[in-house]
């Protein structure tokens, strides 16, 4: 808690000093300015569009990032599981996914805009391309590192390959999927903001880059704080789900 208090105190002191020297200063707005701007954004309709901007932005961004994460998670489990369990799939796909995950996603953003247009699809695709290959690789490794003893034991208990997958492998993959999701949250937000900054009409990243032209720090700072809070909240929810739903994975024992 202390570092946060120090940071906020430092901000208040410098903001106060700058505003005392120049009341028109835009760089470090006072708490009152921040509050009134945010009140305007979060509770009043925009004159031009009739939307309440803060919430339209939030909903648009969340929709994109959650769709992309859901699709990435699905790909991660579907491909990772098969790569982990079936040697043929592993041998075929591992080098391909490894190469794919090394393409800088931002470098192919223009391709996405050309092919998929400027709509939602390109933005969601960018996040998926940035996040999914790493998730697939991670889950493939996690699947492969399940002890061979477990698989043999299950076979001696009469398990078919299908039963082995649904009763032994998949249940042990879920907490690992949550870990992979938590680790990819940072890059998912990065790609979201990047795609929104370049071509969009709404979204948290779009708003920040839009008001940058007016040096509107009173919008940018609260938006950045809000994005951070959202990311932190998503992380906390995932952590909580993992602890509640998979208590066996908490104590860290791999036996």
């Amino acid at each position: 808690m202390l570092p946060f208090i120090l940071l906020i105190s430092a901000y208040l002191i410098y903001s106060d000093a700058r505003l005392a020297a120049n009341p028109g200063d835009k760089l470090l707005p006072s708490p009152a300015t921040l509050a009134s701007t945010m009140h305007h954004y979060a509770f009043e309709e925009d004159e031009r569009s009739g939307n309440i901007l803060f919430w339209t932005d939030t909903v648009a961004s969340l929709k994109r990032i959650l769709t992309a994460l859901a699709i990435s998670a699905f790909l991660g489990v579907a491909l990772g599981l098969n790569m982990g369990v079936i040697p043929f799939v592993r041998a075929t796909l591992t080098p391909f996914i490894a190469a794919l995950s090394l393409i800088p996603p931002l470098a192919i953003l223009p391709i996405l805009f050309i092919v998929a247009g400027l709509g939602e699809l390109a933005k969601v695709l960018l996040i998926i391309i940035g996040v999914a290959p790493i998730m697939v690789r991670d889950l493939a490794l996690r699947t492969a590192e399940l002890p061979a003893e477990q698989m043999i034991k299950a076979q001696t208990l009469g398990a078919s390959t299908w039963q082995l997958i649904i009763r032994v492998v998949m249940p042990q993959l879920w907490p690992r999927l949550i870990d992979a999701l938590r680790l990819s949250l940072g890059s998912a937000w990065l790609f979201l903001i990047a795609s929104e900054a370049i071509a969009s009409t709404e979204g948290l990243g779009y708003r920040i880059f839009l008001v940058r032209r007016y040096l509107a720090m009173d919008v940018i700072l609260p938006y950045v704080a809000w994005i951070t809070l959202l990311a932190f909240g998503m992380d906390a929810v995932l952590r909580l789900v993992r602890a509640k739903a998979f208590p066996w994975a908490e104590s860290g024992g791999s036996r």
Partner: protein
Amino acid sequence: MTQVTVKHVRKEYETQVVIENVNLHVTDHEFVTIVGASGCGKTTFLRMLLGVESPTRGEFLIDGQPLPQEPGPDRGIVFQRYSLFPHLTVLDNLLLGLEFRGSSLLGHLHGTRRREAIAKADHLLDAVGLNASRNKYPAQLSGGMQQRLSIAQSVICEPKILLLDEPFGALDPGITGDMHELILKLWNMNKMTIFMVTHDLKESFYLGTRLLVFDKVRVDSQAQDRYGATITYNIPLKGRRSTQALDAAFDIGKMRNDEQRIHDYILPLGR
């Protein structure tokens, strides 16, 4: 009735011969203990019985039928570790074998059939003394409890053969005595044939009805891998010896290595 016959089995990896010329006949309801120095193919032999390795030459026969080339429900296994399912509670770990058998599509039992399975599991939980921990996860159990569960998990499927790969090797010496009583109890309850690899010579004498010693007969000092190990002693142990007699025998041989002990003091006991 389960008869296990091993005929002229040889196992080699690219340049290394692990075991050669292994012949064995084991009759029903035997408790076979297997000892030998590290790297003498004890575990390889067990893995071939399990079906995860196949012999380069020779064959394994169970009741006259060739051994299937993959693990199956007629042969249970307990490893030294990692053979429990960490995401299932003690009870669910135990039920797993019954659920695999009872529900091929979902691998889950429901309603009456689940209650029947639980009744069966309850019986075993009592036998291995884990009924109080039935809702715990494996990570919350001690090493000894984990091995008891792993044994029960295999026994519930009523395998013809139970394979034990140093099951008590990672446990405190203090609790191995309890584990011995437990495994003997289950062995008598289920009338199965047990093959157990162990490093503990005394244990192998105490538990076994037949002791196999794996060792290399021929050694080429220029090419250590050229010759494999084989069964150098196949000792039927008639009647269970008292622990005192064993203690005495082992005390005499205290200063010597295991091979000398077998030769000088243990072999006469088996005759």
